Protein backbone atom coordinates (compact mmCIF):
# COMPACT_ATOMS: atom_id res chain seq x y z
CA UNK A 1 0.00 0.00 0.00
CA UNK A 2 1.38 3.37 -0.94
CA UNK A 3 2.07 5.71 1.94
CA UNK A 4 1.18 9.32 1.34
CA UNK A 5 4.15 11.44 2.36
CA UNK A 6 4.28 15.10 2.99
CA UNK A 7 7.45 16.85 1.89
CA UNK A 8 9.00 18.38 4.95
CA UNK A 9 10.44 17.42 8.26
CA UNK A 10 7.67 14.94 9.13
CA UNK A 11 8.36 12.73 6.17
CA UNK A 12 8.01 9.00 6.76
CA UNK A 13 9.40 7.74 3.44
CA UNK A 14 12.65 5.92 2.83
CA UNK A 15 15.72 7.60 4.26
CA UNK A 16 19.08 7.47 2.50
CA UNK A 17 22.38 8.53 3.98
CA UNK A 18 24.62 10.71 1.82
CA UNK A 19 28.13 12.11 2.15
CA UNK A 20 27.90 15.87 2.55
CA UNK A 21 30.02 18.07 0.28
CA UNK A 22 28.11 21.24 1.14
CA UNK A 23 25.64 21.16 4.00
CA UNK A 24 22.16 22.62 3.66
CA UNK A 25 18.45 21.94 3.51
CA UNK A 26 16.46 21.45 0.31
CA UNK A 27 13.13 20.07 -0.66
CA UNK A 28 11.75 19.68 -4.14
CA UNK A 29 10.79 17.78 -7.20
CA UNK A 30 13.47 15.57 -8.76
CA UNK A 31 15.08 16.12 -12.14
CA UNK A 32 17.31 13.13 -12.59
CA UNK A 33 19.65 11.75 -15.22
CA UNK A 34 22.39 9.16 -15.46
CA UNK A 35 24.18 11.35 -18.01
CA UNK A 36 27.03 13.51 -16.76
CA UNK A 37 26.71 17.24 -17.29
CA UNK A 38 28.94 20.22 -18.01
CA UNK A 39 27.36 23.27 -16.38
CA UNK A 40 29.43 25.49 -18.67
CA UNK A 41 27.96 25.24 -22.15
CA UNK A 42 25.27 22.92 -20.84
CA UNK A 43 23.32 25.12 -18.42
CA UNK A 44 22.00 28.64 -18.86
CA UNK A 45 22.58 30.44 -15.53
CA UNK A 46 20.03 33.15 -16.38
CA UNK A 47 17.13 30.74 -16.86
CA UNK A 48 18.19 27.48 -15.23
CA UNK A 49 17.61 25.56 -18.46
CA UNK A 50 19.76 22.71 -19.82
CA UNK A 51 21.05 23.93 -23.19
CA UNK A 52 23.21 20.95 -24.20
CA UNK A 53 21.26 19.52 -27.12
CA UNK A 54 22.92 16.15 -26.68
CA UNK A 55 21.79 15.84 -23.07
CA UNK A 56 18.73 13.77 -22.15
CA UNK A 57 17.38 16.70 -20.09
CA UNK A 58 17.81 19.25 -22.91
CA UNK A 59 15.24 22.00 -22.46
CA UNK A 60 14.43 21.16 -18.83
CA UNK A 61 14.34 23.97 -16.28
CA UNK A 62 16.24 22.94 -13.14
CA UNK A 63 15.37 26.06 -11.14
CA UNK A 64 14.33 24.98 -7.65
CA UNK A 65 14.54 21.28 -8.50
CA UNK A 66 16.58 18.57 -6.79
CA UNK A 67 19.08 17.76 -9.52
CA UNK A 68 20.20 14.13 -9.42
CA UNK A 69 23.22 13.63 -11.69
CA UNK A 70 26.15 11.21 -11.32
CA UNK A 71 29.02 13.60 -11.91
CA UNK A 72 30.12 16.66 -13.81
CA UNK A 73 32.20 16.61 -16.97
CA UNK A 74 33.87 18.96 -19.39
CA UNK A 75 34.72 22.56 -18.68
CA UNK A 76 36.17 23.74 -15.40
CA UNK A 77 34.09 26.93 -15.80
CA UNK A 78 31.19 24.87 -14.46
CA UNK A 79 31.84 26.32 -11.00
CA UNK A 80 31.34 29.88 -12.22
CA UNK A 81 28.20 29.02 -14.18
CA UNK A 82 26.72 27.33 -11.12
CA UNK A 83 27.66 30.32 -8.95
CA UNK A 84 25.99 32.69 -11.41
CA UNK A 85 22.90 30.49 -11.46
CA UNK A 86 22.84 30.57 -7.65
CA UNK A 87 23.16 34.36 -7.64
CA UNK A 88 20.47 34.80 -10.32
CA UNK A 89 18.09 32.46 -8.48
CA UNK A 90 18.07 29.86 -11.24
CA UNK A 91 20.10 27.09 -9.66
CA UNK A 92 18.73 23.74 -8.55
CA UNK A 93 17.51 23.69 -4.92
CA UNK A 94 19.92 20.86 -4.17
CA UNK A 95 22.31 18.57 -6.03
CA UNK A 96 22.68 14.83 -5.48
CA UNK A 97 25.71 13.18 -7.06
CA UNK A 98 27.01 9.64 -7.30
CA UNK A 99 30.67 10.71 -7.04
CA UNK A 100 32.43 13.62 -5.42
CA UNK A 101 32.66 16.45 -7.93
CA UNK A 102 34.86 19.29 -6.85
CA UNK A 103 33.85 21.59 -9.70
CA UNK A 104 30.18 21.45 -8.76
CA UNK A 105 30.89 21.68 -5.01
CA UNK A 106 33.23 24.63 -5.56
CA UNK A 107 30.56 26.82 -7.18
CA UNK A 108 28.40 26.33 -4.09
CA UNK A 109 31.29 26.79 -1.62
CA UNK A 110 32.20 30.14 -3.20
CA UNK A 111 28.52 31.14 -3.09
CA UNK A 112 28.46 30.39 0.63
CA UNK A 113 31.74 32.23 1.31
CA UNK A 114 30.81 35.36 -0.63
CA UNK A 115 27.01 35.46 -0.46
CA UNK A 116 26.34 33.70 2.85
CA UNK A 117 23.75 31.37 1.35
CA UNK A 118 24.00 27.87 -0.03
CA UNK A 119 22.31 24.77 -1.36
CA UNK A 120 23.17 21.21 -0.28
CA UNK A 121 25.47 19.10 -2.45
CA UNK A 122 25.63 15.45 -1.38
CA UNK A 123 26.92 12.14 -2.73
CA UNK A 124 24.94 8.89 -2.62
CA UNK A 125 26.26 5.36 -3.11
CA UNK A 126 25.27 3.50 -6.30
CA UNK A 127 22.14 1.80 -4.99
CA UNK A 128 20.83 4.85 -3.13
CA UNK A 129 21.62 7.01 -6.13
CA UNK A 130 19.30 4.84 -8.23
CA UNK A 131 16.58 5.19 -5.57
CA UNK A 132 16.99 8.98 -5.65
CA UNK A 133 16.90 8.98 -9.44
CA UNK A 134 13.56 7.19 -9.42
CA UNK A 135 12.02 9.35 -6.71
CA UNK A 136 9.52 12.05 -7.54
CA UNK A 137 10.37 14.36 -4.68
CA UNK A 138 13.27 14.47 -2.23
CA UNK A 139 14.27 16.27 0.92
CA UNK A 140 17.92 16.83 1.74
CA UNK A 141 18.81 17.57 5.36
CA UNK A 142 21.99 19.30 6.58
CA UNK A 143 23.37 16.03 8.01
CA UNK A 144 23.15 14.34 4.59
CA UNK A 145 19.89 12.48 5.16
CA UNK A 146 17.98 12.23 1.89
CA UNK A 147 14.29 11.43 2.36
CA UNK A 148 12.32 9.95 -0.47
CA UNK A 149 8.69 10.79 -0.97
CA UNK A 150 6.53 9.06 -3.55
CA UNK A 151 4.26 11.93 -4.49
CA UNK A 152 4.66 15.61 -5.14
CA UNK A 153 3.80 16.58 -1.59
CA UNK A 154 0.55 18.27 -2.53
CA UNK A 155 -1.55 15.14 -2.70
CA UNK A 156 -2.80 13.81 -6.01
Amino acid at each position, binding site marked *: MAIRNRVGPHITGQKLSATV*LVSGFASGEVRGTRE*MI*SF*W*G*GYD*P*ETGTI*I*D*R*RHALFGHDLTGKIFVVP*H*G*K*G*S*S*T*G*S*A*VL*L*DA*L*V*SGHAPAGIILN*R*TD*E*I*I*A*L*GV*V*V*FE*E*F*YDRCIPVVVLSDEDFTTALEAKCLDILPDGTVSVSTDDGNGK
Partner: protein
Amino acid sequence: MNELLLSEKDQQMLDGRMGLGTQAAMRIVVRIARIQNATELIDVSHVHVGGSIYTGPGSLNVIERLVEQGAKVRVPTTINAISIDRRRWKDQNIDAEFAGSADRLATGFENLGAAPIFSCTPYVFPTAPTFGQDIVWAESNAIAYANSVIGARTNRHGDFLDICAAITGRAPLAGLHIPENRHGSFLVNVPPVSGVDGSFYTALGYLVGKHAGELVPVIDGLMEAPSLEDLKNFCAAVATSGAVGMFHIVGVTPEAPTLEAALGGQEPQKTLNVSLADLMHTTDGLSTGSGNKLDLVVMGSPHFTLGDCAELAELVRGKKRNAKVDVLITTNRMVLEEATREGWAEMIAAFGGRFSTDNCLCMLNSDMFSNEMQTVMTNSGKFAHYGPGLIRRGVYFGSMSDCVESAVAGAPIVTTPEWAVA
Protein backbone atom coordinates in the same frame (compact mmCIF):
# COMPACT_ATOMS: atom_id res chain seq x y z
CA MET B 1 37.76 11.06 6.85
CA ASN B 2 41.35 12.30 7.06
CA GLU B 3 42.44 15.19 9.17
CA LEU B 4 43.76 18.13 7.20
CA LEU B 5 47.09 19.30 8.62
CA LEU B 6 47.81 22.97 7.97
CA SER B 7 51.21 24.63 8.09
CA GLU B 8 51.81 27.63 10.30
CA LYS B 9 51.60 29.92 7.29
CA ASP B 10 48.36 28.27 6.10
CA GLN B 11 46.91 28.91 9.54
CA GLN B 12 48.03 32.55 9.47
CA MET B 13 46.27 33.05 6.15
CA LEU B 14 43.19 31.30 7.48
CA ASP B 15 43.17 33.50 10.58
CA GLY B 16 43.19 36.64 8.46
CA ARG B 17 46.67 37.77 9.41
CA MET B 18 47.57 38.19 5.72
CA GLY B 19 44.52 40.19 4.72
CA LEU B 20 40.85 39.58 4.12
CA GLY B 21 41.17 38.49 0.50
CA THR B 22 43.88 35.96 1.34
CA GLN B 23 41.73 34.68 4.19
CA ALA B 24 38.72 34.15 1.91
CA ALA B 25 40.95 32.38 -0.64
CA MET B 26 42.46 30.12 2.02
CA ARG B 27 39.01 29.29 3.46
CA ILE B 28 37.92 28.09 0.01
CA VAL B 29 41.13 26.07 -0.55
CA VAL B 30 40.68 24.43 2.87
CA ARG B 31 37.02 23.59 2.28
CA ILE B 32 37.82 21.96 -1.06
CA ALA B 33 40.78 20.12 0.53
CA ARG B 34 38.35 18.64 3.08
CA ILE B 35 35.91 17.63 0.31
CA GLN B 36 38.82 15.90 -1.43
CA ASN B 37 39.82 14.19 1.83
CA ALA B 38 43.31 15.70 1.53
CA THR B 39 45.75 15.40 4.44
CA GLU B 40 47.74 18.53 3.66
CA LEU B 41 48.21 21.44 1.28
CA ILE B 42 51.17 21.69 -1.10
CA ASP B 43 53.08 24.57 -2.68
CA VAL B 44 52.25 25.21 -6.31
CA SER B 45 54.63 26.84 -8.77
CA HIS B 46 52.25 28.10 -11.47
CA VAL B 47 48.57 28.86 -11.83
CA HIS B 48 46.45 29.30 -14.95
CA VAL B 49 43.13 30.89 -14.06
CA GLY B 50 40.10 29.84 -16.08
CA GLY B 51 37.47 32.02 -14.47
CA SER B 52 38.21 34.83 -16.91
CA ILE B 53 35.26 33.82 -19.08
CA TYR B 54 32.37 36.10 -18.18
CA THR B 55 29.48 33.96 -16.98
CA GLY B 56 27.51 36.58 -15.07
CA PRO B 57 27.48 39.27 -12.39
CA GLY B 58 27.78 36.76 -9.55
CA SER B 59 31.28 35.60 -10.42
CA LEU B 60 32.45 39.09 -11.47
CA ASN B 61 31.49 40.33 -8.01
CA VAL B 62 33.60 37.62 -6.35
CA ILE B 63 36.73 38.65 -8.28
CA GLU B 64 36.17 42.37 -7.64
CA ARG B 65 35.63 41.68 -3.93
CA LEU B 66 39.01 39.87 -3.82
CA VAL B 67 40.62 42.93 -5.44
CA GLU B 68 38.96 45.30 -2.96
CA GLN B 69 40.18 43.12 -0.12
CA GLY B 70 43.74 43.63 -1.32
CA ALA B 71 44.45 40.08 -2.48
CA LYS B 72 47.45 39.45 -4.79
CA VAL B 73 48.76 36.31 -6.44
CA ARG B 74 51.82 34.76 -4.71
CA VAL B 75 52.98 32.59 -7.64
CA PRO B 76 53.31 33.20 -11.42
CA THR B 77 49.77 33.19 -12.78
CA THR B 78 48.42 33.41 -16.32
CA ILE B 79 44.88 34.25 -17.47
CA ASN B 80 42.77 32.06 -19.75
CA ALA B 81 40.95 33.37 -22.80
CA ILE B 82 38.43 36.08 -21.96
CA SER B 83 34.96 36.71 -23.35
CA ILE B 84 35.86 39.58 -25.70
CA ASP B 85 38.56 40.62 -28.09
CA ARG B 86 39.68 43.77 -26.31
CA ARG B 87 40.82 45.45 -29.55
CA ARG B 88 38.09 44.33 -31.93
CA TRP B 89 34.86 43.79 -30.00
CA LYS B 90 33.25 46.96 -31.35
CA ASP B 91 33.34 45.46 -34.87
CA GLN B 92 32.03 42.08 -33.72
CA ASN B 93 28.41 42.76 -32.91
CA ILE B 94 29.03 42.51 -29.18
CA ASP B 95 26.67 44.08 -26.70
CA ALA B 96 28.46 47.03 -25.04
CA GLU B 97 27.22 46.13 -21.56
CA PHE B 98 28.43 42.56 -21.96
CA ALA B 99 31.80 43.79 -23.26
CA GLY B 100 32.10 46.14 -20.29
CA SER B 101 31.46 43.33 -17.81
CA ALA B 102 33.83 40.96 -19.61
CA ASP B 103 36.53 43.66 -19.61
CA ARG B 104 35.99 44.36 -15.91
CA LEU B 105 36.45 40.66 -15.16
CA ALA B 106 39.75 40.55 -17.10
CA THR B 107 40.88 43.76 -15.35
CA GLY B 108 40.01 42.20 -12.00
CA PHE B 109 42.35 39.28 -12.65
CA GLU B 110 45.07 41.66 -13.85
CA ASN B 111 44.65 43.69 -10.65
CA LEU B 112 45.17 40.50 -8.67
CA GLY B 113 48.54 40.23 -10.43
CA ALA B 114 47.84 37.60 -13.10
CA ALA B 115 49.52 37.91 -16.53
CA PRO B 116 47.12 38.75 -19.38
CA ILE B 117 48.15 36.08 -21.90
CA PHE B 118 44.41 35.51 -22.55
CA SER B 119 44.88 32.04 -23.93
CA CYS B 120 43.31 28.61 -23.54
CA THR B 121 46.64 27.05 -24.64
CA PRO B 122 49.00 28.26 -21.87
CA TYR B 123 51.26 25.32 -22.72
CA VAL B 124 52.60 27.08 -25.84
CA PHE B 125 53.89 30.02 -23.77
CA PRO B 126 57.44 30.25 -22.39
CA THR B 127 55.91 30.41 -18.89
CA ALA B 128 54.65 26.81 -19.15
CA PRO B 129 55.65 24.51 -16.28
CA THR B 130 58.01 21.58 -16.63
CA PHE B 131 57.92 17.87 -15.76
CA GLY B 132 57.02 16.98 -12.19
CA GLN B 133 55.95 20.45 -11.01
CA ASP B 134 52.83 20.84 -8.91
CA ILE B 135 50.63 23.48 -10.52
CA VAL B 136 47.00 24.56 -10.55
CA TRP B 137 45.62 24.93 -14.03
CA ALA B 138 42.08 25.52 -15.10
CA GLU B 139 40.69 25.08 -18.64
CA SER B 140 39.91 21.44 -19.35
CA ASN B 141 42.12 21.02 -22.43
CA ALA B 142 45.08 22.67 -20.69
CA ILE B 143 44.67 20.44 -17.61
CA ALA B 144 44.81 17.32 -19.78
CA TYR B 145 47.80 18.71 -21.68
CA ALA B 146 49.74 19.74 -18.55
CA ASN B 147 49.33 16.39 -16.82
CA SER B 148 49.67 14.13 -19.79
CA VAL B 149 52.00 15.82 -22.27
CA ILE B 150 54.17 17.96 -19.95
CA GLY B 151 54.04 15.69 -16.91
CA ALA B 152 53.29 18.59 -14.56
CA ARG B 153 50.68 17.82 -11.91
CA THR B 154 47.30 19.45 -11.60
CA ASN B 155 43.82 18.37 -10.74
CA ARG B 156 40.75 19.16 -12.74
CA HIS B 157 40.07 22.24 -10.63
CA GLY B 158 37.09 24.44 -11.04
CA ASP B 159 37.12 28.19 -11.49
CA PHE B 160 37.81 30.14 -8.28
CA LEU B 161 39.97 27.39 -6.78
CA ASP B 162 42.58 28.42 -9.35
CA ILE B 163 42.64 32.06 -8.27
CA CYS B 164 42.43 31.04 -4.60
CA ALA B 165 45.47 28.78 -5.14
CA ALA B 166 47.29 31.67 -6.84
CA ILE B 167 46.53 34.00 -3.92
CA THR B 168 47.60 31.47 -1.28
CA GLY B 169 50.26 29.62 -3.32
CA ARG B 170 48.72 26.40 -1.99
CA ALA B 171 46.53 23.56 -3.23
CA PRO B 172 45.08 20.38 -1.70
CA LEU B 173 47.34 17.32 -1.91
CA ALA B 174 44.89 15.08 -3.72
CA GLY B 175 44.07 13.39 -6.99
CA LEU B 176 46.67 13.80 -9.72
CA HIS B 177 49.19 15.47 -7.39
CA ILE B 178 49.70 11.97 -5.91
CA PRO B 179 51.91 9.74 -8.14
CA GLU B 180 49.85 6.51 -7.70
CA ASN B 181 46.74 8.24 -8.99
CA ARG B 182 48.49 9.10 -12.25
CA HIS B 183 48.81 5.51 -13.43
CA GLY B 184 46.68 4.39 -16.33
CA SER B 185 43.63 2.25 -15.59
CA PHE B 186 41.78 2.17 -18.90
CA LEU B 187 43.56 0.55 -21.85
CA VAL B 188 42.61 1.82 -25.29
CA ASN B 189 43.97 -0.21 -28.21
CA VAL B 190 44.11 1.75 -31.45
CA PRO B 191 44.14 -0.08 -34.80
CA PRO B 192 46.99 0.50 -37.27
CA VAL B 193 46.15 3.59 -39.32
CA SER B 194 47.88 5.77 -41.84
CA GLY B 195 47.21 9.28 -43.04
CA VAL B 196 46.24 10.56 -39.60
CA ASP B 197 45.39 14.24 -39.23
CA GLY B 198 43.88 16.49 -36.58
CA SER B 199 40.42 14.99 -37.14
CA PHE B 200 41.75 11.54 -36.21
CA TYR B 201 42.96 12.77 -32.83
CA THR B 202 39.74 14.70 -32.28
CA ALA B 203 37.62 11.60 -32.98
CA LEU B 204 39.87 9.39 -30.86
CA GLY B 205 39.82 11.85 -27.95
CA TYR B 206 36.06 12.27 -28.11
CA LEU B 207 35.53 8.50 -28.17
CA VAL B 208 37.97 7.84 -25.32
CA GLY B 209 36.48 10.62 -23.18
CA LYS B 210 33.02 9.09 -23.53
CA HIS B 211 34.20 5.73 -22.21
CA ALA B 212 36.77 6.83 -19.64
CA GLY B 213 34.55 7.85 -16.73
CA GLU B 214 36.92 8.48 -13.80
CA LEU B 215 39.68 6.30 -15.21
CA VAL B 216 43.04 7.37 -16.65
CA PRO B 217 43.18 6.25 -20.31
CA VAL B 218 46.28 4.67 -21.85
CA ILE B 219 46.39 4.84 -25.64
CA ASP B 220 48.40 2.06 -27.19
CA GLY B 221 49.12 1.19 -30.80
CA LEU B 222 49.71 4.60 -32.42
CA MET B 223 52.21 4.21 -35.24
CA GLU B 224 53.32 7.82 -35.64
CA ALA B 225 54.22 10.37 -33.01
CA PRO B 226 51.50 13.03 -32.77
CA SER B 227 52.32 16.72 -33.24
CA LEU B 228 51.64 19.39 -30.61
CA GLU B 229 48.46 20.26 -32.54
CA ASP B 230 47.34 16.60 -32.64
CA LEU B 231 47.82 16.41 -28.88
CA LYS B 232 45.95 19.68 -28.41
CA ASN B 233 43.02 18.33 -30.43
CA PHE B 234 43.07 15.08 -28.46
CA CYS B 235 43.17 16.92 -25.11
CA ALA B 236 40.31 19.22 -26.06
CA ALA B 237 38.12 16.34 -27.24
CA VAL B 238 38.88 13.93 -24.38
CA ALA B 239 38.10 16.63 -21.81
CA THR B 240 34.91 17.66 -23.63
CA SER B 241 33.14 14.33 -23.94
CA GLY B 242 34.34 13.23 -20.51
CA ALA B 243 36.03 14.37 -17.32
CA VAL B 244 39.52 13.22 -18.29
CA GLY B 245 42.32 15.21 -16.64
CA MET B 246 45.12 12.83 -17.52
CA PHE B 247 45.93 10.17 -20.11
CA HIS B 248 48.98 8.37 -21.44
CA ILE B 249 50.06 7.62 -24.98
CA VAL B 250 52.53 4.76 -24.95
CA GLY B 251 55.87 5.81 -26.36
CA VAL B 252 54.82 9.46 -26.57
CA THR B 253 53.87 11.02 -23.23
CA PRO B 254 56.58 11.27 -20.54
CA GLU B 255 55.06 8.94 -17.96
CA ALA B 256 54.41 6.22 -20.54
CA PRO B 257 57.72 5.00 -21.99
CA THR B 258 56.14 1.52 -22.05
CA LEU B 259 52.65 0.12 -21.57
CA GLU B 260 53.72 -1.40 -18.25
CA ALA B 261 55.04 1.95 -17.00
CA ALA B 262 51.86 3.73 -18.07
CA LEU B 263 49.73 1.21 -16.16
CA GLY B 264 52.03 1.35 -13.13
CA GLY B 265 52.45 -2.42 -13.26
CA GLN B 266 48.72 -3.00 -12.68
CA GLU B 267 46.15 -4.67 -14.90
CA PRO B 268 43.80 -2.16 -16.56
CA GLN B 269 40.32 -1.97 -15.02
CA LYS B 270 38.77 -1.70 -18.44
CA THR B 271 39.86 -2.17 -22.08
CA LEU B 272 38.47 -0.65 -25.26
CA ASN B 273 39.47 -1.95 -28.68
CA VAL B 274 38.84 0.93 -31.04
CA SER B 275 37.90 0.21 -34.65
CA LEU B 276 38.04 2.58 -37.59
CA ALA B 277 34.26 2.24 -37.81
CA ASP B 278 33.96 3.51 -34.20
CA LEU B 279 36.11 6.51 -35.08
CA MET B 280 34.13 7.31 -38.22
CA HIS B 281 30.89 6.96 -36.26
CA THR B 282 32.27 9.41 -33.68
CA THR B 283 33.34 11.82 -36.42
CA ASP B 284 29.89 11.70 -38.03
CA GLY B 285 28.24 12.21 -34.64
CA LEU B 286 30.13 15.47 -34.13
CA SER B 287 28.25 17.07 -37.03
CA THR B 288 24.87 18.57 -36.22
CA GLY B 289 24.61 20.85 -39.26
CA SER B 290 21.93 20.78 -41.92
CA GLY B 291 21.43 22.61 -45.20
CA ASN B 292 23.95 23.06 -48.00
CA LYS B 293 24.61 26.78 -47.83
CA LEU B 294 27.55 27.65 -45.61
CA ASP B 295 27.66 30.97 -43.70
CA LEU B 296 30.52 30.71 -41.24
CA VAL B 297 33.71 28.72 -40.70
CA VAL B 298 35.24 28.89 -37.23
CA MET B 299 38.60 27.51 -36.13
CA GLY B 300 40.79 27.92 -33.07
CA SER B 301 39.15 26.11 -30.17
CA PRO B 302 41.47 25.61 -28.38
CA HIS B 303 43.45 28.58 -29.70
CA PHE B 304 45.24 28.25 -33.01
CA THR B 305 48.92 27.46 -32.47
CA LEU B 306 51.76 28.61 -34.69
CA GLY B 307 51.67 25.13 -36.27
CA ASP B 308 47.95 25.52 -37.01
CA CYS B 309 48.67 28.89 -38.67
CA ALA B 310 51.39 27.29 -40.83
CA GLU B 311 49.09 24.44 -41.86
CA LEU B 312 46.22 26.79 -42.69
CA ALA B 313 48.49 29.19 -44.61
CA GLU B 314 49.62 26.26 -46.77
CA LEU B 315 46.03 25.06 -47.34
CA VAL B 316 44.74 28.49 -48.43
CA ARG B 317 47.64 29.29 -50.76
CA GLY B 318 46.23 30.81 -53.93
CA LYS B 319 42.62 30.41 -52.77
CA LYS B 320 39.92 32.86 -51.81
CA ARG B 321 36.91 32.21 -49.66
CA ASN B 322 33.41 32.63 -51.07
CA ALA B 323 32.33 36.22 -50.35
CA LYS B 324 29.30 34.99 -48.44
CA VAL B 325 31.28 32.84 -46.00
CA ASP B 326 32.83 34.42 -42.94
CA VAL B 327 36.02 32.70 -41.75
CA LEU B 328 36.89 33.38 -38.11
CA ILE B 329 40.02 32.11 -36.35
CA THR B 330 40.67 32.60 -32.66
CA THR B 331 44.13 32.68 -31.09
CA ASN B 332 46.18 34.72 -28.66
CA ARG B 333 48.23 37.84 -29.37
CA MET B 334 51.59 36.05 -29.02
CA VAL B 335 50.79 33.45 -31.68
CA LEU B 336 49.26 36.05 -34.00
CA GLU B 337 52.40 38.19 -33.73
CA GLU B 338 54.59 35.19 -34.55
CA ALA B 339 52.32 34.14 -37.43
CA THR B 340 52.51 37.71 -38.73
CA ARG B 341 56.33 37.64 -38.63
CA GLU B 342 56.31 34.34 -40.52
CA GLY B 343 53.99 35.78 -43.17
CA TRP B 344 51.29 33.19 -42.48
CA ALA B 345 48.81 35.66 -41.03
CA GLU B 346 48.99 37.67 -44.26
CA MET B 347 48.35 34.54 -46.37
CA ILE B 348 45.32 33.70 -44.24
CA ALA B 349 44.07 37.29 -44.48
CA ALA B 350 44.50 37.19 -48.29
CA PHE B 351 42.25 34.12 -48.34
CA GLY B 352 39.68 36.14 -46.43
CA GLY B 353 40.16 34.70 -42.96
CA ARG B 354 39.93 37.07 -40.01
CA PHE B 355 41.62 36.61 -36.64
CA SER B 356 40.24 37.42 -33.26
CA THR B 357 42.52 37.38 -30.20
CA ASP B 358 42.00 37.33 -26.42
CA ASN B 359 38.70 35.47 -26.71
CA CYS B 360 37.98 32.07 -28.23
CA LEU B 361 35.17 30.25 -29.99
CA CYS B 362 33.68 29.12 -26.70
CA MET B 363 32.73 32.75 -26.08
CA LEU B 364 30.51 32.96 -29.16
CA ASN B 365 26.81 33.20 -28.44
CA SER B 366 23.61 33.38 -30.46
CA ASP B 367 23.24 37.16 -30.00
CA MET B 368 26.35 37.78 -32.11
CA PHE B 369 24.80 36.43 -35.30
CA SER B 370 21.99 37.51 -37.57
CA ASN B 371 19.12 35.18 -38.47
CA GLU B 372 20.61 34.80 -41.95
CA MET B 373 23.65 33.16 -40.41
CA GLN B 374 22.46 29.59 -40.09
CA THR B 375 25.12 27.09 -41.10
CA VAL B 376 28.46 26.81 -39.35
CA MET B 377 31.45 24.56 -39.89
CA THR B 378 34.47 23.91 -37.70
CA ASN B 379 37.51 21.65 -37.40
CA SER B 380 37.26 21.83 -33.62
CA GLY B 381 35.71 18.86 -31.85
CA LYS B 382 35.25 21.01 -28.77
CA PHE B 383 33.29 23.64 -30.69
CA ALA B 384 31.35 20.98 -32.63
CA HIS B 385 30.23 19.73 -29.22
CA TYR B 386 29.52 23.03 -27.42
CA GLY B 387 28.69 25.23 -30.42
CA PRO B 388 25.08 24.09 -30.96
CA GLY B 389 24.25 24.98 -27.34
CA LEU B 390 26.14 28.27 -27.43
CA ILE B 391 24.99 29.70 -30.76
CA ARG B 392 21.75 27.71 -31.14
CA ARG B 393 22.67 26.52 -34.61
CA GLY B 394 23.81 23.22 -36.05
CA VAL B 395 27.54 22.84 -36.68
CA TYR B 396 29.31 20.72 -39.30
CA PHE B 397 32.55 19.07 -38.23
CA GLY B 398 35.31 18.50 -40.77
CA SER B 399 39.08 18.57 -41.14
CA MET B 400 40.93 21.86 -41.57
CA SER B 401 41.20 21.07 -45.27
CA ASP B 402 37.42 20.46 -45.47
CA CYS B 403 36.86 23.80 -43.74
CA VAL B 404 39.00 25.60 -46.35
CA GLU B 405 37.35 23.85 -49.33
CA SER B 406 33.90 24.54 -47.88
CA ALA B 407 34.69 28.22 -47.39
CA VAL B 408 35.75 28.41 -51.05
CA ALA B 409 32.69 26.53 -52.31
CA GLY B 410 30.21 28.34 -50.05
CA ALA B 411 28.80 24.96 -49.10
CA PRO B 412 29.72 22.41 -46.45
CA ILE B 413 31.98 19.72 -47.87
CA VAL B 414 32.85 16.89 -45.51
CA THR B 415 35.16 14.33 -47.05
CA THR B 416 36.00 10.90 -45.69
CA PRO B 417 39.36 11.33 -43.96
CA GLU B 418 42.36 9.47 -45.37
CA TRP B 419 42.82 7.59 -42.09
CA ALA B 420 39.32 6.13 -42.37
CA VAL B 421 40.05 4.50 -45.73
CA ALA B 422 41.52 1.14 -44.71
